[in-house]
């Protein structure tokens, strides 16, 4: 393939959180992105969730800004209600055929006012609410949907079915309804494809023994998410389906459609934590609620999940019962549900519950098969996308990548990481044609308004009936027109509609307006749109102010229309008062040093460096040891029976021979100065000090296996850690006799009061070594003492394989830790077996400890770079869900074990992800600083330094200026505009763009003017 034929566009198939993230990363890097979504709106499963674990963020609240960002991005074309039919060509140059189904509403024209809905006579089941509510046949999937356009369900529309009705056509003032829309076929050329079609929940009706669909009060976990949601079918009140009563006693049944040979043998990875999350939310609503979770193993292996589990137990009093529920019975009178089960101690119980929630597993999306055929990629035995352990985001076809739950069942951060990771790979294929298909929007020159008296234009929006149905818009407009400096006031049906926007531009020019106030909805969603509009009219974006007379007024004071009108007038007066004082602010453009620094030369660091280099950027890779490789050097086989040494040799070779990568071994960071785009770092490598300039930093400092101080480790030669055991097996330094009686102890140093987190990899490592030993000596007796076996995802099959091979798994808890002693040189173990309820004696020929993963020298790096660590000593990312590799500080990223314990494939995904995120400023070549930054008046500043001390971003520095005293100055590139400095400055020497003291005071005064 010649480079000239490569196409600088990428297609992302599936608009859930993974697809959105991949699209945004690629678009930000300068690729044209087609985001194809099967359903009528992007958002995916995440949009349906009530909250996200373990931080309990409101799911829609953190997702919807991403939806808006994707919708607004000039390089992202969203094609919803569509699927791909075929992918022809090769990496770099594909032709994709798309089928776009009709939605019968013109997306371009519809402004989602919703006036049409009342006219539609047909009610249908609301799929977004899992069928627990009804919507009109003419509906919007959910309020924040993107494209924000209504649609008509053709299966129920009276006109489409019977040629009747057509009421909606009359109702739509914008003529957006087109009942004759036909399906469209589109051919698009792209250089790479990323598949992110997501998941479907397991159909609980398949497990008939639980009575789902038959017993009203048996519901699924996703239904429970909707029930708990404040905007869900019951406004967030938990009710029983049979009688609408609030339940008092609730049970969760885990592993419905997971870890079950009659449905799916794999573990769905997320259900334990989401069940805990749903329980905690329920308990927050009603602390009296009695909740029991019936489980086999609690698998809270992710970052921060274990303490979440502990909180659920201790703080919220959720009961956890280790028991596989075989069936659910219903009391026909009360519709209560009865669970008969055996507890771990063998005792039998029969318990009555008001409501039973089935924790349904994740399955590949129903369209997976179809998609695999269209894209000519292979699926694995479970119907998920087939990938290799060492290439987790690469499908079986070159140039086609995968991310999210289509690759394996996974949670949001893992999906987001894979999404960015696949973006890095797509960008690696297309780096030489980056930017060829996206056009930099040309801006009309900004009109200089300095010296002009304020000429304010006020636009009052009706928002259909949303505002005008309550407040008197004409009165508000008249009132606005009478305010000082207001030279123009107008009302419009929809200020945000395309034609209104064009009118606003004309009016600004015609009346030489130099400030604009829009009285409409919330600036949180609409400010960027209007700012863009006034910018097109030649005004600086910051000459804009908004009065929120809908969300803050007519929507909440519908019963007091006069008060709402008066309040609207106040809000307009306050906005105008602020607008008078608005000044144009410069968006600073800071050039970026197009070079990356990767700290840490283990698997993650090498992967990240290589991915950065493959995307066309120079990169310096720092390794503290003499040799690259990190922990990978000590791994010789994986659970999936792959050889990490091959991976190591291959990646090392690529790194060492890549022309864009400079490796500094035996090196460490001495000092870091600067900010995103312009870091200057002093490093010491092989005792030589040098300085490098770079634009981004990726932290990949890894972690290590704990050296236990218990169980005779280091005191008896037959006591190993799992890593050392793996190494000893691989190098052949053990004898057959050592394998006679092998005892393994899990959670050594993990899930303890001292180290409360789960080390995630040890269950897999123990089973890996156990299977290897069984392979070498089938007669070996292997006992694994565990708290919970956490072979999440497809690794569940290896757990089963180990049990089938005769490995004995015995539970222990902190009250009954194995007692290891030495008697005349031989190991002796006294352990409690909870099944027989007695101590047993084992004489192990070999003892393997599944030792915790502990952070390395993160503290030093954390201090040098001023990025935070969590309580456990791992780096703390900017956001646990949606920014898993970023820091709050721009330009610094984290991946691999430095972030949290994780497996090889997860490390690779995360390293690629960090490389994709880091490549954004490098690809752009500039960093745009938001104009809302602080600004120091040098005359007033007396250099006290309180601002420097308080700034959360290290963005204000107090330095001696030539010939003068100490003065503070803002580093515009990294200032985020919180205003902490401005609020604290004793000399009032600091102002905050768009939120100046004068402006806020003017708002206060304007409000007071009417008292």
């Amino acid at each position, binding site marked *: 393939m010649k480079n000239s034929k490569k196409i600088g566009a990428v297609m992302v198939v599936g608009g859930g959180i993974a697809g959105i993230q991949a699209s945004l990363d690629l678009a930000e890097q300068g690729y044209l992105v087609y985001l194809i979504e099967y359903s009528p709106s992007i958002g995916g499963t995440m949009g349906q969730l009530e909250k996200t674990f373990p931080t309990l963020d409101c799911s829609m609240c953190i997702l919807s800004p991403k939806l808006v960002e994707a919708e607004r991005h000039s390089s992202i074309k969203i094609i919803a209600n569509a699927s791909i039919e075929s992918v022809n060509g090769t990496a770099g140059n594909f032709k994709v055929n798309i089928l776009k189904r009709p939605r019968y509403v013109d997306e371009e024209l519809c402004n989602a006012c919703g006036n049409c809905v009342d006219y539609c006579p047909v009610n249908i089941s609301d799929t977004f609410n899992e069928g627990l509510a009804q919507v009109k046949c003419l509906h919007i999937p959910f309020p924040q949907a993107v494209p924000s356009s209504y649609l008509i369900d053709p299966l129920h529309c009276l006109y489409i079915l019977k040629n009747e009705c057509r009421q909606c056509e009359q109702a739509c003032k914008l003529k957006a309804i087109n009942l004759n829309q036909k399906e469209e076929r589109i051919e698009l050329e792209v250089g790479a494809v990323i598949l992110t079609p997501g998941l479907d929940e397991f159909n609980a009706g398949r497990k008939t023994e639980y009575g789902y669909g038959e017993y009203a009060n048996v519901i699924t976990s996703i239904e429970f998410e909707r029930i708990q949601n404040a905007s869900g079918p019951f406004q967030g009140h938990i009710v029983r389906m049979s009688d609408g009563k609030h339940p008092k006693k609730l049970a969760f049944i885990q592993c419905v459609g997971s870890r079950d040979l009659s449905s799916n043998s794999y573990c769905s990875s997320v259900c334990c934590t989401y069940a805990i999350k749903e329980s905690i939310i329920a308990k927050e609503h009603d602390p009296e609620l009695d909740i029991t979770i019936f489980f086999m193993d609690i698998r809270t292996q992710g970052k921060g999940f274990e303490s979440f589990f502990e909180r659920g137990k201790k703080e919220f009093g959720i009961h956890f019962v280790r028991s596989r529920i075989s069936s659910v019975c219903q009391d026909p009178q009360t519709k209560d549900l009865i669970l008969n089960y055996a507890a771990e101690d063998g005792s039998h119980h029969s318990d009555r519950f008001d409501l039973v929630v089935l924790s349904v597993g994740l399955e590949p999306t129903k369209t997976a098969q179809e998609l695999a055929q269209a894209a000519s990629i292979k699926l694995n035995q479970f119907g998920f996308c087939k990938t290799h352990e060492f290439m987790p985001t690469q499908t079986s076809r070159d140039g086609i990548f995968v991310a999210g739950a289509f690759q394996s069942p996974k949670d949001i951060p893992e999906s987001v990481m894979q999404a960015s990771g696949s973006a890095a790979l797509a960008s690696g294929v297309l780096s030489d044609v980056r930017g060829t298909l996206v056009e930099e929007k040309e801006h009309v020159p900004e009109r200089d308004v300095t010296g002009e008296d304020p000429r304010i234009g006020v636009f009052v929006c009706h928002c259909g009936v949303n505002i005008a149905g309550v407040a008197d818009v004409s009165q508000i407009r008249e009132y606005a027109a009478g305010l000082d400096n207001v030279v123009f006031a107008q009302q419009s049906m929809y200020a945000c509609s395309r034609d209104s926007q064009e009118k606003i531009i004309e009016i600004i020019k015609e009346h030489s307006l130099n400030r604009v106030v829009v009285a409409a909805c919330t600036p949180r969603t609409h400010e960027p749109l209007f700012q863009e509009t006034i910018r097109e009219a030649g005004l600086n974006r910051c000459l804009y102010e908004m009065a929120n007379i809908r969300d803050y007024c007519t929507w909440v004071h519908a019963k007091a229309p006069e008060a709402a009108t008066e*309040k609207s007038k106040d809000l307009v007066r306050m906005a105008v008062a602020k607008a008078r004082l608005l000044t144009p602010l410069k968006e600073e453009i800071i050039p970026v040093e197009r070079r990356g620094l990767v700290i840490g030369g283990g698997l993650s660091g090498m992967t990240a460096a290589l991915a950065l280099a493959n995307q066309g950027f120079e990169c310096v890779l720092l390794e503290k040891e003499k040799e690259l490789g990190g922990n990978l050097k000590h791994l010789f086989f994986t659970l999936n029976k792959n050889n990490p040494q091959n991976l190591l040799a291959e990646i090392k070779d690529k790194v060492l021979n890549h022309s864009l990568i400079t490796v500094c071994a035996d090196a460490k960071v001495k000092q870091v100065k600067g900010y995103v785009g312009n870091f200057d770092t002093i490093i010491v490598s092989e005792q030589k000090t040098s300085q490098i300039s770079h634009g981004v930093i990726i932290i990949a400092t890894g972690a290590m296996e704990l050296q236990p101080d218990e169980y005779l480790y280091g005191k008896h030669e037959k006591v190993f850690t799992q890593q050392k055991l793996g190494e000893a097996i691989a190098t052949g330094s053990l004898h057959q006799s050592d394998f006679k009686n092998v005892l393994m102890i899990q959670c050594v140093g993990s899930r303890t009061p001292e180290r409360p987190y789960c080390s995630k990899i040890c269950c897999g490592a123990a089973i890996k070594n156990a299977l290897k030993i069984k392979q070498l000596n089938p007669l070996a007796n292997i006992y694994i003492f565990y708290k919970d076996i956490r072979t999440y995802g497809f690794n569940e099959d290896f757990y089963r394989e180990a049990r089938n091979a005769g490995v004995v798994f015995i539970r222990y808890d902190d009250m009954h830790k194995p007692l290891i002693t030495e008697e005349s040189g031989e190991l002796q173990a006294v352990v409690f077996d909870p099944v027989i309820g007695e101590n047993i004696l084992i004489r192990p020929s070999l003892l393997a400890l599944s030792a915790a993963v502990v952070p390395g020298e993160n503290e030093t790096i954390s201090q040098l770079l001023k990025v935070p660590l969590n309580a456990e000593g791992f780096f703390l990312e900017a956001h646990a869900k949606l920014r898993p590799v970023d820091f709050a500080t721009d330009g610094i990223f984290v991946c691999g074990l430095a972030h949290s314990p994780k497996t090889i494939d997860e490390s690779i995904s995360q390293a690629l992800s960090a490389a994709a995120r880091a490549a954004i400023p490098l690809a752009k070549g500039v960093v745009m600083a938001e104009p809302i930054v602080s600004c120091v008046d040098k005359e007033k500043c007396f250099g006290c330094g309180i601002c420097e001390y308080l700034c959360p971003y290290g963005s204000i520095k107090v330095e001696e200026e030539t010939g003068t005293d100490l003065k503070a100055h803002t580093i515009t590139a990294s200032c985020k505009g919180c205003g902490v400095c401005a*609020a604290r400055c004793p000399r009032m020497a600091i102002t905050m763009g768009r939120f100046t003291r004068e402006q*806020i005071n003017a708002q206060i005064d304007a409000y007071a003017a009417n008292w």
Partner: protein
Amino acid sequence: MSKWQPNIITFLCNWCTYGAADMAGVSRLEYPPYIRIIRVPCSGRISPKFILAAFREGADGVWISGCHPGDCHYIEGNYYGRRKFALMKSLLEHTGIEPGRLHFSWISSAEATKFADVAWDVCKSVEALGPSTKMVRQRAAQISQNLIS
């Protein structure tokens, strides 16, 4: 003559409570119509001077709300806000302004119901105190006028 209604100035951080107030709108949760909201980037942006200015201009109550501890969009701005607020409150009390006139809360962008509930609480608490008399500029002018004459 209708019942006396207080004037309450509210400062909301853009990222959390402003969002909650939006959500309260989306969810059509009613609250008293006499609070006026001023948007600020972060509760840490609130200088005590804004609170003083509000009271000086005659506000009967001031309410500041930001992100929950640990949730601040700007890492720790809400802690600074909170610290200043605590100091401010005791200072104001010292000058004779009733503590019930100044309120502070943490409300995330998801907590529409909490927003409406707190709005009611703030309004009730201020309403119970009646019109503000301390520190108000107009009154000060009046008093000094009286002193002179």
